[in-house]
């Protein structure tokens, strides 16, 4: 059982606060760190991997601070986001060097095992510089796995991967999670995190916005006021029919735009309600479009709601 604890950690760079008073515990199994770009995910991962001290608060591995503690790397495997990785080496040389740096008793066998795990043996004698993005990602994985770590930290591992590679990596991470390892990966795509993570931590604008399993996060994201713009053959009649239902909280008749601005509070019920009401009243729907569905606005709702 290896656990990373982040306790009231903040990190600022000059006047910019990248991580703001975040507390979370990363336990065995797969955890997804979800948030829009620039939310502070990488800063958090850097703190968890000992490459950045928290400005205040603490980041510990089983109770021991990770910053300036090189022994922690016996338990941590890190897959960084950046691609640079000794491009002049072959995949084999690169993974072998990582095994040697860990001081493993049989680095050759460890490198072989790691390359087999990520299915890169077929290209292990080629130079890293000739690899595709997905292949580089897998060799990075192999280098992080070579010492059989209890904790695996991955910064945006699915970036630039094709669907097949994505599936393979997800399968691999799922397996590690099932083996009882503590796996944490970051992503800005909800669907990606949802498919893989048992537990999701949401971070927005440096703040911890939500935490829970994917059902809870999904619900949080859908159970929020949604704004819709609706145009129909008879806006007034439609508005009257919709406001009678508890799934709507407010309807405005927008004179200039000749449209209804509707605030819905029960997403599923509302989406089912609109076509039914229109059909029963003989009204033709011309436009039904969500007004603010960007990921950022979804996330900022979460922050405001907390």
């Amino acid at each position, binding site marked *: 059982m290896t656990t990373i604890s982040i306790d009231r950690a903040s990190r600022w*760079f000059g006047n910019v606060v*990248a991580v703001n008073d975040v507390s979370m515990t990363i336990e065995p199994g797969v955890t997804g760190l979800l948030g829009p*770009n*620039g939310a*502070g*995910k*990488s*800063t958090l991962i*850097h703190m968890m*991997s*000992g*490459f*950045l*001290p928290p400005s205040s608060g603490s980041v510990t591995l089983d109770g021991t601070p990770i910053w*300036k503690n*090189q*022994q*922690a*790397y*016996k338990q*941590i495997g*890190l897959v*960084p*986001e*950046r691609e*640079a*990785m*000794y491009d*002049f*080496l072959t995949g084999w040389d690169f993974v072998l*060097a*990582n095994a*040697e*740096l*860990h*001081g493993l008793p049989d680095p050759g066998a460890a490198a072989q095992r790691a390359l087999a795990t990520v299915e890169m043996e077929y290209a292990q004698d080629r130079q890293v510089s000739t690899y595709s993005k997905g292949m580089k990602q897998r060799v990075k994985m192999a*280098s992080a796995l070579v010492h059989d770590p209890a904790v695996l930290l991955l910064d945006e591992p699915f970036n630039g991967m094709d669907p097949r590679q994505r599936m393979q990596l997800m399968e691999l991470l799922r397996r590690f999670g099932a083996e009882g390892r503590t796996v944490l990966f970051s992503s800005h795509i909800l669907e990606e995190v949802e498919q893989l993570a048992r537990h999701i931590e949401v971070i927005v604008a440096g703040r911890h916005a939500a935490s829970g399993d994917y059902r809870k996060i999904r619900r949080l994201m859908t159970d929020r006021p949604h704004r819709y713009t609706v145009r129909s053959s008879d806006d007034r009649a439609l508005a009257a029919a919709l406001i009678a239902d508890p799934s709507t909280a407010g309807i405005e008749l927008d004179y200039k735009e000749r449209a209804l601005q509707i605030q819905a509070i029960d997403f599923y019920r509302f989406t089912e309600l609109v076509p039914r009401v229109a059909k029963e009243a003989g009204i033709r729907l011309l436009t039904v479009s969500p007004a603010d569905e960007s990921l950022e606005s979804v996330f900022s709702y979460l922050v405001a709601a907390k």
Partner: protein
Amino acid sequence: MNVTVARLTARGLLGRRRGLLLLALPVLLLALSALIRAIAGQDEGTASNILGGLALGTMVPLVGLVAGTGAIGPEIDDGSIIYLLSKPQPRWKIITSKLVVAIGCSVVFAALPTYFAGLILFGTYQNLTLGYTVAALIAGVAYSAIFLLLGVVSRHAVVWGLMYALLWETVVGAYVPGAQTLSVHQWALSIGEKIASPGVISSSVHLPTAVPLLLVASLGGAWLASARLTRLTLAGEE
């Protein structure tokens, strides 16, 4: 000393363009020495000028600069250093290994060529060649440590290094005699002065001043680089 770190460093340093650059300087020195010997014959003044000015004054600091900064700077710049640092290895070991490789480069690409150039120009007379070779060797160690530190501390290590080696040591040193007290070149010359026959090599710094300063620069550089590497942060990527 970690063999894996040293191997990776050496491969990174000697591969591609940097290796060619390191090789070009000594080849140039040896070719020029052969040409001068053929035209001007064996002359102490000429030999001293070439070994002191071109070899010790220009080639040794440049090779030290390329090897010292190149041993760590590019890895920090592109972020690949993360693979060395995310290991249960003390950071001073990483610095020591890189320093050993940088010094090795200085020996092969600066000190040995100085020796051969000396042999071509003046043979072994008056220990002139030996004096400059030992000076080149010692200067190589100090430059490697200083420039390795610069490589850890600054992203513009090459610019700072060039300013030190060319502006401070050469230009400023020529007009402001006091500046020569803080010159690796002069420290190394003071050791060469003791080895060669009296009056053949001269330095503006006395040996009792030069030796402690050389030790401080070399050991202090390595120590500071280790300390700085321990606190290396990865930030600003978002």
